[in-house]
Structures are given as C-alpha cells and as structure tokens.
C-alpha cells in the first residue's frame, strides 16, 4: 500500500523534530528551575556554607562561550556548502565540549582540595547543591558532545555536503541551549550562591 507520510500543511511550518527539541528544552529548563529554586529555599535556612566559586569555572564559561561561536560557524559553513570548514568547526566544538567537561571536573576537585566536601557526611548542602546542579548540567553537555560526535561522524563520511542540514541545526540549537543554561547557572551560583 503506497502511503505518503507527508501532510498538506507541514511544508510551511517548522520541522516537527525542532518542535520536539524546543519542548524538550522547556522541560530541561523546568528541571534546573526546580533545582535552583530549591537552592534559594535552602540558602535562606540555617547552616549554609559560603564559599568562593573556584576560578576554573570562569575559564570553563569562556570555553563553552567559544564553543557556541564554533558551532555557529559550523552551521554557517554547512549552509554555504563548504564541507571542510564545516567538518572542522563541528569537530572543534565537540573538542571544546570535552574541554569544558574536564574543566568542570577540575572545579569539583578544586573544591575538594579546599576541604569543601561535595558529598558524604561532612558535606554542606551549599557545596552539594553546586555539585548536583553542575553535574546534571555536565551530563546534558555530555549528551550534546555525543550528538556532535555523531553528526561529525556522518560529516566526515559524507562525500558531499548533505542536502539535509536538519541534524546540525538541531545539535546547534541544543548546544547554544546548554551554553546559555551554563551561563545562567554560573551567574546564579556566583552571585546568588
């Protein structure tokens, strides 16, 4: 039976996968909204430890900002049909994502080195909150890195620039999102925390 899965009205609308992604971003926003509001509630109660955010988190912020620039360049090159710069920027973004992740982990280690326990019986929930929030963001970045590597894989295998720029558009949107999310979290942890 021959069935065309396309419906008449679809052509002028945004792609359903983009809609899926936007709704998904909304749900991720709610997750971090839940965590940061719990943070605010907890901070107003007794027994809250104040400490300086390690410098390395500032460096990681610059790294992820830079990676937003590179993914945007990758998107631009993909649309211009320039295959090699496209591959380069895409892969560079994935590398910057990995650098960001390792910097975050160094941030955790810097806190532990200052004798601020993130978990365990000696831990204060100020540090635990920072750890959990940052760790969950890290996992979302990891998801983005895997997606970037997946798109890079097909970019390196393809002979020509793909007709379909949807995967890279989706991954770029997600990547900008985790970037903005981190900037929000950094500002939140630095000034509110």
């Amino acid at each position, binding site marked *: *039976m021959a069935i065309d899965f396309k*419906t008449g009205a679809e052509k002028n609308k945004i792609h*359903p996968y983009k809609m899926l992604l936007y*709704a998904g971003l909304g*749900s*991720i926003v*709610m997750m971090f909204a839940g965590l940061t509001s*719990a943070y605010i509630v907890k901070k107003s*109660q007794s027994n809250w430890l104040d400490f300086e955010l390690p410098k390395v988190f500032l460096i990681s912020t610059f790294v992820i900002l830079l990676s937003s620039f590179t993914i945007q360049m990758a998107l631009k090159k993909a649309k211009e049909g320039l295959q090699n710069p496209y591959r380069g920027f895409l892969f560079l973004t994935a590398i910057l994502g990995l650098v960001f992740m390792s910097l975050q982990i160094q941030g955790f280690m810097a806190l532990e080195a200052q004798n601020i326990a993130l978990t365990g019986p000696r831990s204060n929930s100020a540090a635990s909150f920072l750890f959990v929030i940052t760790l969950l963001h890290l996992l979302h970045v990891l998801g983005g890195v895997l997606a970037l590597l997946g798109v890079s894989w097909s970019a390196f295998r393809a002979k020509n620039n793909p007709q379909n720029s949807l995967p890279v558009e989706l991954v770029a949107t997600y990547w900008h999102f985790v970037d903005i999310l981190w900037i929000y979290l950094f500002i939140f942890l630095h000034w509110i925390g």
Partner: protein
Amino acid sequence: MSHEAALHNHEGHGHDDHGDHEHHDTFLTKYVFSQDHKMIAKQFLITGMVWAVLGGLMSVLFRLQLGYPDASFPWLESILGKWAKGGQITPEAYYALVTTHGTVLVFFVLTAGLSGTFANFLIPLQIGARDMASPFLNMLSYWFFFTASIVMLSSLFVETGPFSGGWTAYPPLSALHDASPGSKSGMDLWIIAMALFVVSSLLGGLNYIATILNMRTKGMSMTRLPLTIWALFFTAVLGVLSFPVLLSGMILLIFDRNFGTSFYLSDIYVNGVGALSNEGGSAILFQHLFWFLGHPEVYIILLPAMGMVSEIMSVNSRKPIFGYMAMLGSLFAIAILAFLVWAHHMFVTGLNPFLGSVFVLLTLLIAVPSAIKVFNWLTTLWRGNIRFTPGMLFAIGFVSLFISGGLTGIWLGNAALDIYLHDSYFVVAHFHIVMGVASMFGMFAGVYHWFPKMYGRYLNNTLGYIHFWITIAGAYMIFWPMHYQGLAGMPRRYFDFSIWESFKQFAELNRFISTVAMIVFAVQILFLINFFYSIFKGRKVTVQNPWESNTLEWTTPIRPGHGNWPGEIPEVHRWPYDYGKDGHDFIPQTTPVGADETGTH
C-alpha cells in the same frame, strides 16, 4: 518509515519506502517494537490494565485488613507468605500495599495507562496525521514504561519488601535505609522505576506536543481541534513542565540516600541508629518539589478524561458541545492554576499562614473553570437526543463523580478546614472520587467509545451496562461513607482501627466498604473478560462510522493500517461539533461548508 524521510524525500520516494516497510513487518516489528501509534496505544492500554488489576487487588487486600481486622485468612499466608503470617496481613505489608497501590494507580494506570493510551491513539487519528512527530521516540516511551513496570514489579519480590513510606515518598522514610524494611532495596527499585517512568512520560509528552502543533492536516486549525486533543495537549504540557521538577527532587533524594548529602536529612534521631551525621537538611524541601509535580499530576490524570468525556457527550447527545471556547479557556485556566496551588497539600507542614492564604485563594479559583466545565457538560446534555451507550454512561458518571468529588475540594482547599481534615478519611474520599474513580470512568468511557476503532469489533453492551451500574453504585458506596468517617476524625494510613475506642463505631461501616470494594473489583474482572473476549470474538464493525461521529478517526478504514489513511489525508473544513445543524444529524469535519449553511465555526 521515519518522518525524516517523509519530509525530505519527494512523493515518489516516500511511496517506495513505505511499500517496502509493509513487506518487512514481522511479528516483532508489528506487535512488539512497533512504531505505529495505534499499536503503541494498545500496548499502553494493556500494560495499564495489568497494573490496574494488580493495584486493585492490592486495595482489596488492604481493605480485607480494614474490614476484618480480627479475622484470619489462611489462604493469605499461602499467597503472601511471611507478609501475612497466621493469615493476617502484617503492618509492614499493609503499608507496602497502600504505597504500591497509590504509586501504581497514579502513575502507571492513570498517567501511562490513560494518557499514554489515548494520546497515542487519538492524536494522530483526530488531527489527521500519519503518525507521531517521532514514532521512534514514541516507541521508546512505551519501552521505558515497560522497563519501569518490570522494575516496580520486581520490587514486590525483594526480601525486605517494596517501598512502604507512601506514594509521596517523603524523606526521611524514603531517604534512610534504616527507617523501615521497605526503605531498603524496595525503595531503590521504586526510585529507579520512577526515574524510568519520568523518562517515558517526557518522551511521550514531547511527542504529543510536537505532533499537535506541527502535524495537523490541512484546514485543521487549532480551534477546529476536538476537545480531546486540546485536553491531551494541556496534559502533555503539564507533564513536560512538572515531571522534570519531580526528577530533580528525586535526584537530590538519591544523593541523600546514597552519597551522604544533607538536602533533606538533618541530625534526626533514628531508633537503633542514633543521631544521623547529616546536618541542616529540610524534609519540607522535598515536599515542595514533590507537590510541584504532584498537583499538576492530578490534572495530568484528570484532563484526558475531561477531554474524552466532552467528545463522547457531544457525539451521544447529538448536539454541539456547549461553549467550545469556554471549555478550551477553562482547560487553559486549569493548566495554569495547576502550577500555582501545590502548597495546599502542605497546610500542616508549618507553612506561613499568610502564604497559606494565597494558596487557599488560588486553590479555590480552580472551582471557576471546573464549574464552567460542569455546566457546559450539563448544557450539552440538556435537550439532547441522548444515546445511552456504555461509553456515554461512563461519561455521565464521570461528570457525577467530578461534581461530588469537586465539592469536597472546596472544603479541603480552605486551610482552616484542611488543618482538621488533613490525613483523615475525608481526604481519601475526596481524591479517590474526584481523581481516581472519575478518571477511571473517563478511561472506561474512552475504551467503550473507541474500542470499535481500536479492534474493529464492538464490546458487549449488556456486560457494559452491568459494569457501569455496579461500578458507579459501588464507587459511591465505598467512598461516600468515608467522608463521614473523616469528619469524625478517623485518620488515614492506620493499619487497625479496632483498638481505638472512638473508631470502634466504624467497624461495621468498614466491613461494608470492604465488601463493596470486593464486589466492584469482581465487576472489573467482568470488564476485562468483555475486553479480551471482544478483541477476538466481539461483534464485527461493519460500518465505517458506527457512532455517526464528525471527527477524523472515523474516516479511516475500519481496521486502519500504519499511516491511517490509505490515500490522501482528508482535508478539514469545519469544527468537529456540527451535530443537529441545519436539519442534518451530523456533518463530518471533512464535509465542505455549503453555500446556504448557517454560521460556521
């Protein structure tokens, strides 16, 4: 075939791909790892039914204890073993049963079983789409639910028993391994199952939203959508925005449980353990995070039922739904208010009374859209040419229960009254009627109404009528008396009331409630027999549109294949509620507007 290919290949290509796909359908891809939204809907429905039987059976077991606290049932010991030593359910088993009953009914039956089934089944069919935005994620949504089900089921068999600290999983019972037997590995499995469940419902919800917003057929503007779709849309939005907050609450719980953090735990003294080494945690914080999901969850359960009831009532009254835009507006208002009332579950936590009064006001505001909906249902029935099909009876039953249970909501929404009634049987009666039984009725209405579309056969009507009348009478006989018990101060969650002088007077009433509960449970078995028998042996559907309904699902073949419409997707020219218009009994959405037609929607 993936949607991707559908969008980016031009016609010819798409045809070939799908042709191939049809050839390669194996048992595994058609019935198990199916990406057809209709099959996924049936998977959700049947898994939900299995859970409904298990959850219902649990309630029968704990009602047995409440109704016959002194009796001994040796057969219980042979089923439950050490959990019913000497033929009497142990207190630990009682709490485990109550907890699992709550968790399973709220999440696995009335969330996954209800909106999982009908969102999957009705959204593509009623908006005129081949399938969901991402059939693959849709399939994953079911399999996450299935895995969650297996994990939850396995928690019933661990040596220390399933989690027993209540479906709300408040710390410290949920955060401390040593707090109770059920807090050990039972709780680990509970939390894993719930995390998988949240993933399932997020994947489902995202798909429902994207599909409704992006994949409607030509002419299907948002205000031409059937109210079922609107209700399922708001349900999905509520789920997508509130489940992540529960997930974050549970992640913090996992850290407290396993990594020694102090989000919820403080230096409380636990019998046999001594004071904990944790410092400064707040158990109330979990309640805030939990109820920020928990209250929207009530509407996640209720809205799909409301939507289906609106549709079924209009079809079977042969009248347009009264106040379509008001119905839509009230769904929207309920969805917004759902996020602003969570603390009314926490009036007795030491909440600031001034803050409490804000939550009282916001809670009572929900009465406004609820009343609008009730009046619109009643005015839809008013002077209608009503066909009392079993589906219609369950829809009317839903409205009855929603009124009865909604009115007590006005009591409980008042902090002053709630402080007295909190944790009493009044609360049990309220939420079971308004959310539990009412939504079950919505689900039954949906199953009876759409069964011919699902399986190409009819359910047996006589069994349907028996099912309806005994269930509605039974529901009121079970839960109506509980209001009086609650007003008299009878607390919920007690294992045995016979040792309290003040509650001895309720011994016979408790026995009555338990007896009715067993009868009602037995009648649900009758429904299951009807359901499974009719799938294979029911009377065959021979007409395309048996209910003479306007919506698009009845323009598909009697047994639609993957892709729903063999040819072009029909175009829509009008809203779905043109019943009894200009001398026509019904005018399907696909009929173009005539030149001499009176005002159209």
